[in-house]
C-alpha cells in the first residue's frame, strides 16, 4: 500500500474572474442515424464555478458522458453555447479544441487509457510535450504529480506492470501534471474495486481541496456524494 501525500491544488492559473469556468447555455447534442434522431443532451444550462467539485450523476444513457465530452472539448454541441473560461468554444476547429484541451483540461477516464508502450513517467509527461513545455519542466512536473498520487516509486514501470488502482492514480497524475483549469473524470472508479475506487475518490477530493475545479461523471450515488454539488441528468436534461 503506497502512501498518498496530502494533495495540494494543481498550480492552476490564478485568474480572478467572476465568470464561471464552464458556462453552458441551451446546449443540445443530437445524434442522427438513418431514420432516427437521438437527443443525447437537450436544452441544458450548466455553470461550473472555479474551484468547484461537481458530480454529474444519472443512469446509463442519460447523456452525462456526452455532456462531459462536450465540456472536455472532445465533442461539439449541435445547438447552444459553451464558454470555457469566458471564451466561446462552441464553433472552434479541431486543432483549436485540441490546443485548449491541452492547456485547460485534464482527463481521467474510466479505462485509465494509459499508453502501454510508455513508462509511467513518460505517460505523465506526454501531454505536456504538446504544449512545447521544456523537457526539464516536464520532468519536474511529472515527478511532482507522481509524488502527489503516491506513484513516484513506479515511474519507470510500464502500465501493464501496475494494478488497476495504480494505473488510475497514474492517470490522475497525468491529468493534473499540466495544471489544468478543469479536471474532468468520466466514471473514474468504473473499472476499480470499491477499495481502489475509494482511494481515487480521496485523490480527487484532495485535489479539489487543493483548489482544483473538478467535474466528475458517475452513475454511482456513493461516489457522487464526494462532490460539492451533484447535478442529475435524465434523458439528456438536468433533473
Amino acid at each position, binding site marked *: 500500500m503506497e502512501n498518498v501525500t496530502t494533495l495540494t491544488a494543481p498550480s492552476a492559473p490564478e485568474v480572478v474572474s467572476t465568470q464561471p469556468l464552464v458556462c453552458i447555455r441551451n446546449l443540445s447534442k443530437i445524434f442522427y442515424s438513418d431514420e432516427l434522431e437521438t437527443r443525447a443532451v437537450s436544452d441544458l444550462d450548466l455553470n461550473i464555478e472555479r474551484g468547484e467539485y461537481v458530480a454529474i450523476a444519472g443512469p446509463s444513457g442519460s447523456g452525462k458522458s456526452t455532456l462531459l*465530452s462536450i465540456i*472536455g472539448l*472532445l*465533442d461539439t454541441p449541435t445547438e447552444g453555447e459553451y464558454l470555457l473560461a469566458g471564451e466561446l468554444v462552441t464553433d472552434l476547429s*479541431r*486543432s483549436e479544441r*485540441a*490546443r485548449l*484541451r*491541452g*492547456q485547460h*483540461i*485534464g*482527463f481521467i*477516464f474510466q*479505462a485509465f*487509457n*494509459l*499508453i*502501454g*508502450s510508455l513508462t509511467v513517467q513518460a505517460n505523465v509527461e*506526454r*501531454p505536456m*510535450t*504538446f*504544449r512545447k513545455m521544456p523537457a526539464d519542466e516536464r520532468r519536474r512536473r511529472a515527478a511532482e504529480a507522481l509524488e502527489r498520487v503516491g506513484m513516484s516509486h513506479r515511474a519507470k514501470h*510500464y*502500465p*501493464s506492470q501496475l494494478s*488497476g488502482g495504480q494505473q488510475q492514480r497514474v492517470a490522475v497524475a*497525468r*491529468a493534473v501534471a*499540466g495544471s489544468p483549469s478543469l479536471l474532468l473524470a468520466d466514471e473514474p472508479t468504473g473499472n476499480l474495486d470499491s477499495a481502489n475506487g475509494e482511494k481515487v475518490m480521496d485523490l480527487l477530493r484532495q485535489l479539489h481541496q487543493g483548489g482544483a475545479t473538478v467535474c466528475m461523471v458517475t452513475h454511482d450515488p456513493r461516489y457522487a456524494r464526494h462532490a460539492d454539488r451533484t447535478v442529475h441528468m435524465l434523458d439528456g436534461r438536468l433533473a
Partner: protein
Amino acid sequence: MNSLWQDLRFGARMLLKHPSFALVAITALALGIGANTAIFSIVNAVLLRQLPYKDSARLMMLWETDPKRGGSPTGFSYPRFNFLRNQQQSFDAVAAYTTRNFSVMGPEGPMLVPGAHISGDFFQATGIGPAYGRPFAPEEDQPGAAPVAILGYELWQSQFGGNQNMIGQSITADGQSLTVIGVMPAGFKLFEEKIDLWVPRVFETNFLTPQQIQRGGIYLAVFGRLKSDVTLDQARAALTVTSEQYQQAFSGNSDAANGMGAGSLREYLVGDISSTLWILLGAVAFVLLIACANVASLLLARVATRQREIAVRMSLGATFWRLVRQTLTESILLSVVGGVVGLLLAFLGLKLVLGMGSEVIPRAGEIQLDRWVLIFTLLISVLTGVVFGVAPALLQAKTNSNESLKEGARGESGGVRRHRLHQALVIAEVALTLVLLIGAGLLIRSFLRLRNVDTGLNPRGVLTMQLVLPASRYGTPAQQAIFYDQLLEKVKSLPGVTSAGMTTRLHLDEPGSTILFFPEGQVDQGAQNPQGRLRIVSPQYFDTMGIPLVQGRMFNERDTAAGPRVMIINESMARRYFQNQNPLGKRITYTLDRLTCEVVGVVRDAKTSVVQTQASEEMYVPYPQRTVPRMMLVVRGSSADPLSLSGEVRRQVQAVDKEQPVAKIRSMDQVIADTLSQPRFMTTLLIIFAVVALILATVGIYGVMSYSVTERTKEFGILMAVGAQQRDVLKMVLKQGLILAVIGVVIGLIATIPLRKLLLSQMHGISATDPLTLVTVSLLLMTVALLACYIPALRATRVDPLDALRYE
C-alpha cells in the same frame, strides 16, 4: 500424417478466407523466389554444371606468363607449344588452337565465317570428335599436306543443307580448295566460341610470317587434359621445370623468358562472369529476404487478429509445438504457392535476362529451368516459408490463452513483442534495400563514367568492318597493299564520307599486337626487351578516328614499302622511353624480325577499351611497310548514322573484288556498346533488383506503419484527448518511421562495407565509398520511407478521440 493433411487443408482455407492478404504475400514471395530461380538457373548452367566435354574437370587451360607484365597471362608461341607437347608428362594430351575468319564461298557468294586451326591432339584432349566423318589424320597435320576441313554443324546445315554427301567433297575457303572430311556435333563450340570451319596445322597463321612464328610469336591458345593421377599443383610445378628447359633450348626466341601457368578450363571460360553472377545471386537473395520481411510483417498483423482463435485452440488442448507446426504449415503453403508463381516469373525473367545478356553470359545456350532449378525452387520456397513464418509462429503460440479470452484484457506484452518485431522487420527491410540500392547506385555511377570516359578519340559517326584477304588471291604483301589502296581510294570518294582508314586492331575493341622492341640508345636484350602494342594502320586512320597529332607528322604517300621505315608512337610511349628527349628521329627496332623504324610523329593516347585506366605504350606503322591480310576498315561519314554508309561501302569492296566478303559491320558506338555490355548487363539487373527491393520495402514500410497506426488508434485518440494536435500526431508517426529508416540506413551502410569491396572489381573510375552515391541513396531511401509513412500518418491525424476512446 493425418494431422499434417488437416493443417494443410486448414491453411488453404485460411488463405482463401483472406484473399487480399494471400495476394499481397504471394506476389511478394513470387517476386523474391522468381528472381532467385532465374539467377540460380544461370549460376547453375554457367558455374555449377559440368562443361560439355568428356571428364571436363580435368581440362586445364595453359598459358605463358610474362614476367615483364607482372606475370600476366598471355597466349602460347608454336615453338613452346611443340616443346611442351613433347616434354610434358602431366597431361594425357595437350592441344592448341588459333581462331580466325575464313572467306568461304557459299551457295550465295563469299562470306566470312569463324574458323579455327586446331592441333592434332584437339579431339583427344576434348574427348569429342566429329559427329559425321572422321577427325584429322596425323599426316594431315603436316606442312604441305592435302588441305582438309571439318564443317561446323550450323554451317553445314545453313549452307549445305545438312547433306551427308558433303563429306569427301570440296569447299573453297580463302580461295583454297579444302576437302570436307567431317561435320562437328550440333552446338559444339570451341570453348564458347562459335566455329564454322575447323582446319588442322596450327603452325600456319595468316597474320604472322613463318619466321615470326618460329621466333616465338604468340598466337596460340593451349589446353590439356590432366592425367587422372596428377594434381593441378603437380602439373604447375612440372610446367615451371619445362619453362626453364625451354628457356635454355630456345634462348633466342622472343618468349624465352616467359613462364607457364595452368588453371581449370571452367575458370578460364566463366572466370570473368562468375563474380558478377555470385553478386547477382546475392542481390536476389536480398530481394527474397525483403519479401520474407514483408510477409512476416503481414503474418504478425494476423497474429493479433487470430489471438482469440489460438487461445481457443490452446484451451481445447493444442500444445505449443502443435500450434507452431500449424502456423508454419500455413507459411510454407503460402511460400510454395509463391514459388509456383515465382517459377512462372522466373521463366519470363530468364527470357528477359538472356535477351539482355546472352552475349556476356558464357554457356548461355545451356541455361534452362532444369530439374536442379526446380529442386532449388522447391527448397528455397520451403526455406522461405520457415524463415518468414517462424517468428510469427512462435509469437502466436506464446499467446496467453487466459488473457486473450478475456474481453478488454490489459495484457500488452504480446503487443509490445509484436511491435518490436515489426520495427525490427522495417529496419531489416531498409538495411537490405539500402545495400542493394548502394550497389546499384555505385554501378550506375561507374557505368555513366565509362560512357563518358575520355577515350582519346572521337568515335561518333564512324563505321567499321572487317576484311580478311584470302591467301589464294592476296598471297603477297604487295597484292594486299594494292587492294587496300584501291579500296580506300574508292571509299574516300563516296558522297557523305569525310575520311577512311584501316587498322589491324580497332581502338576501344582490342589491344594492339604485343611486340618486343628496343629503342635507340638501349641494348638489345632479346627476350628481356620491353613490350609494346603495335597497330598497322593506313595514313588516314588517325584522322578518321579523331586521334590528334601531338608532334611531328602523320603517315603520308611517301611512306611506301620501298621508302624508309617509319613509325608513329603515342604520348605514353614517348614519355616512357624518350623522357627528356625529342622522340622525333629516334629509331625503334622490333625484336621479332629485327626491323628498325624511325619515329616521325607522336599522337595522343587513345584507349584500347573504355575500361582501360591507363593507356598502353603504342606504336603505329603504315600498312605499305608491314602489310597483313586482316584489317579493320574505318569510315567517318557526315551522317549521324554511320551504318547508313555500310551498303555503299560494301559495294565498293565488291567493286574492288567481287569475291571479297566483309564481316563485323558495326558503328564505333556499337563497338563501345559491346565493350560495355557486361557492365551494362550487371548494372541493369542490379537496378531491376534494387527497384523491386525498393517497391517491396516501400510496401513493407507502408504495411507496418499502416498496421501500427491501426493498432495505435486508441493511443492517438488518448493523446488527442490530452492535447495532441493533428500536426503532433503526424510528426509522431513520421518520426517513428524516420527513426526506423535512419537505423536501417546506418545498419545498411555498415553492411555495405564488404559489398563495396566485392563490387570493386565491377567499378571503374569511382571509389567504393563514393560519397555522392552513399548520401543520395540514403536520402532517397529515407524519403521513400517517409512517403510510405505519410499516408498512415495522415490517417492517424484523422482519428476522432471520442471514437478512439469508445473503441475500448
